[in-house]
């Protein structure tokens, strides 16, 4: 990734470094509706989950959710109308607009060379639940899927922002945000675009709460990653988007960089639709593939932003996979799961965690994992608990695992 290359830009012929850098960030989360509010809340140990107010969870094993309260997406819709757009589309447009404003990039000038890749689990589907129930009740309801096409989470931001290049959606379960970032970085590296937005989004889905309740994977109080007595996850909603640019494009316009996408690995656990491989094989393979793609060694990892869902199944397996990759350095390489603060925002989760990785690199501080009472001895890693830890970070690993065995690991580097 240190190769020099000759690039023709609007400023003429430039000799520059190859690679993909991150130049803008945007998030909407249960602990903050802007990047700085989110980051302050994480460092302060805020917990954004609690009894659900916007969704009926009666009869389930938990009444907890990580809701985004009091957020108005309308100001982010400057060109297109917000009317008719489902909540997931609205959150996606808001986070995308936020990231572009942060990057200060004039997208209309890039147009055909700019695009977006978004990930999601359910995206716009929850809005179909009520009409289908009404249909069953005998109502004559219009059941067009026009506003429920998952593509709108990428197409609406694309229209809003003037992106006319690759516009893709990767619904790869809870690994979707990372999958999207990896795909977008590839599209730049492969010459399909110079600027790509990438991220993930999801709104709360009653059906998903039912599914995790059935699997007895919902925590009754708070989400406790790596805790000995962890009971499960808490579903949340939100969006995270990053702006990626070729290093050449970013340099040519004098953009500030949060870091580069050094590499990524995408693998299937190839084991079971819901249970991770008992040895975390897929997770380990993906971390090693990402290191290989980045041309980095495990010894260079400074920080692991864990998938850390707080479910009995995930955390021990993930911790052991991390330990196998880090070796004895696992005793001192900080690991955190910000899902303890946000809840598990599904397709958005790893995109929001990517933003946390980049801010951790910028500020030299690892946000804490909250809610741990007793660290699980079966999780032999260095979890940053309760308070942030100051630490220089040059290489951050972001893990994401999903149902179906979808695994995506992205590495960011200074």
């Amino acid at each position: 990734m240190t190769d020099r290359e000759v690039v023709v830009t609007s400023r003429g012929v430039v000799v520059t470094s190859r690679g993909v850098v991150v130049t803008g960030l945007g998030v909407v989360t249960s602990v903050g509706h802007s990047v700085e509010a989110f980051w302050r809340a994480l460092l302060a140990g805020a917990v954004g989950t609690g009894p659900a107010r916007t969704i009926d969870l009666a009869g389930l094993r938990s009444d907890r959710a990580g809701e985004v309260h009091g957020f108005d997406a309308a100001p982010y819709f400057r060109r297109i109308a917000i009317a008719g757009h489902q909540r997931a589309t609205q959150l996606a447009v808001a986070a995308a607009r936020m990231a572009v404003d942060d990057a200060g990039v004039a997208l209309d000038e890039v147009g055909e060379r700019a695009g977006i890749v978004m990930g999601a689990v359910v995206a716009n589907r929850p809005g179909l639940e009520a009409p289908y129930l009404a249909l069953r009740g005998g109502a004559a309801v219009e059941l067009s899927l026009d506003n429920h096409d998952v593509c709108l989470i990428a197409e609406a931001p694309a229209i809003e922002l003037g992106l006319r290049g690759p516009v893709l959606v990767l619904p790869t379960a809870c690994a979707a945000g990372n999958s999207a970032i990896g795909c977008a970085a590839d599209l730049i590296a492969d010459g399909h675009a110079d600027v790509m937005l990438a991220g993930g989004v999801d709104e709360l889905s009653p059906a998903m709460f039912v599914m995790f309740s059935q699997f007895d994977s919902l925590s009754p109080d708070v989400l406790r990653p790596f805790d000995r007595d962890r009971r499960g996850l808490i579903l949340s909603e939100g969006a995270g988007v990053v702006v990626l640019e070729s290093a050449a494009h970013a340099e040519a316009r004098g953009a500030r960089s949060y870091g580069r996408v050094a590499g990524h690995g995408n693998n299937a656990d190839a084991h079971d639709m819901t249970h991770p491989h008992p040895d975390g094989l897929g997770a380990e393979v993906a971390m090693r593939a990402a290191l290989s793609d980045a041309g980095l060694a495990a010894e260079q990892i400074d920080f692991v932003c864990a998938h850390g869902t707080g479910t009995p199944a995930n955390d021990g397996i993930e911790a052991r996979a991390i330990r196998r990759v880090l070796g004895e350095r696992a005793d001192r390489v900080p690991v955190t799961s910000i899902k303890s603060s946000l809840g598990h925002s599904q397709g958005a989760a790893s995109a929001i965690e990517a933003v946390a990785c980049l801010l951790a690199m910028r500020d030299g501080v690892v946000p804490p994992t909250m809610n741990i009472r007793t660290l699980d001895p079966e999780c032999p890693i260095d979890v940053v608990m309760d308070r942030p830890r100051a630490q220089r970070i040059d290489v951050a690993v972001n893990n994401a695992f999903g149902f179906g065995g979808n695994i995506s690991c992205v590495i960011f580097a200074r």
Partner: protein
Amino acid sequence: MRDLRKVVITGLGAVSAYGLGADPLWRGLLAGRSCVAPASPTLEDLPAIPAFPASAIGAFSARDVLGKGLRGVCRESQLLLAATLFARRDAGLADGAVARDAEGVFAGTRWAGLEDYLHFHLERSIWGPEKVSPTRGPNTGFNAPASHVSIRHDLQGPNLTFASRSSASLDAIGHAADWIRKQRVKIVYAGGIESLSYPRARHLLAAGRPIAEAARPFDARRTGATPGEGAVIVVLEDAEHARARGARILAEVGAWAMAFEPAQPDRAARRVLRAAGPADAIFGSASGDRALDAWEAAAIAADHADVPVCAVKGAAGEWEGASGALQVLAATRALADRVVPPTAGFERLDPELPAIRVAGAARPGALASVAVVTLHGSGRASALALRAAP
């Protein structure tokens, strides 16, 4: 600088209204024969939908094709599993023949999981959360078909699902080829799955557009698309890997391009066709839809007016997320068998469209390269170039 390898197609698999495997589908396309019959998808406890003409997969016995172990595997996943099985056989690949992390699966779909999602929700409302079928949950996601393929065939390489409307499976194939070129993986089973589900049928009714009994792409008398369903898997393989194991090479994969022009779909199609490069035939997206066909005709006329065009949706119907893979299957067989299939239903070019070369009969002859283009009224277009086997 990494050495970019060539990517070839070494196998094809499909399940469609024409039957099991790529061969019956290809024979149907080559004969310009459609398999349209009245369809009325159902969903437990919901009102019946009046029958409409569709290219639907009839009786499909997953057990006969796939054997045991199908509990908790939804129909969409079964169809993609079957297409994968046929494609692996066609490519001469057995389980375990390649390192498990050197094989991946990329699938395109527009609506996968939606029927199971709604069914899951309705079951909860009817019977309560404790009585919902617990195996249905993981099938509610778009990623279920590709994930079931990775699990059943023990593919530990990349596992991605694309949902870019009618470009979804073309994008899956295009991106998979890029993964192989970077030498991250040797083989990717790439393709698409779309089923004729109850919510999709409801949507067609709600949209109020006419549904054609016989689709007539580009024809003056066209009235609309015929909905269809199917699963297609294309075996993409590193060319050196394929040669080393003595595989039969059907075609080589060329450039992939995407464009988004929300107000001008024709412009999007023109951009991607240009990026795909010179072509001896175009495998188009035209379905018999009045607007879609006109946009595509305008794009083809701009730079490719003399190139023969084949619209396979005239025979096979509109497969939405799986249609790109259907078009790639046809284009691959056209290169290998040296013949461009006819556009079924086409008799006379709509005089309101610009002059392009569509034919109602098959055109035999060697082809050096072809372009596959997918287009949607949202302004989304993708293209993929394929070349004859070296």
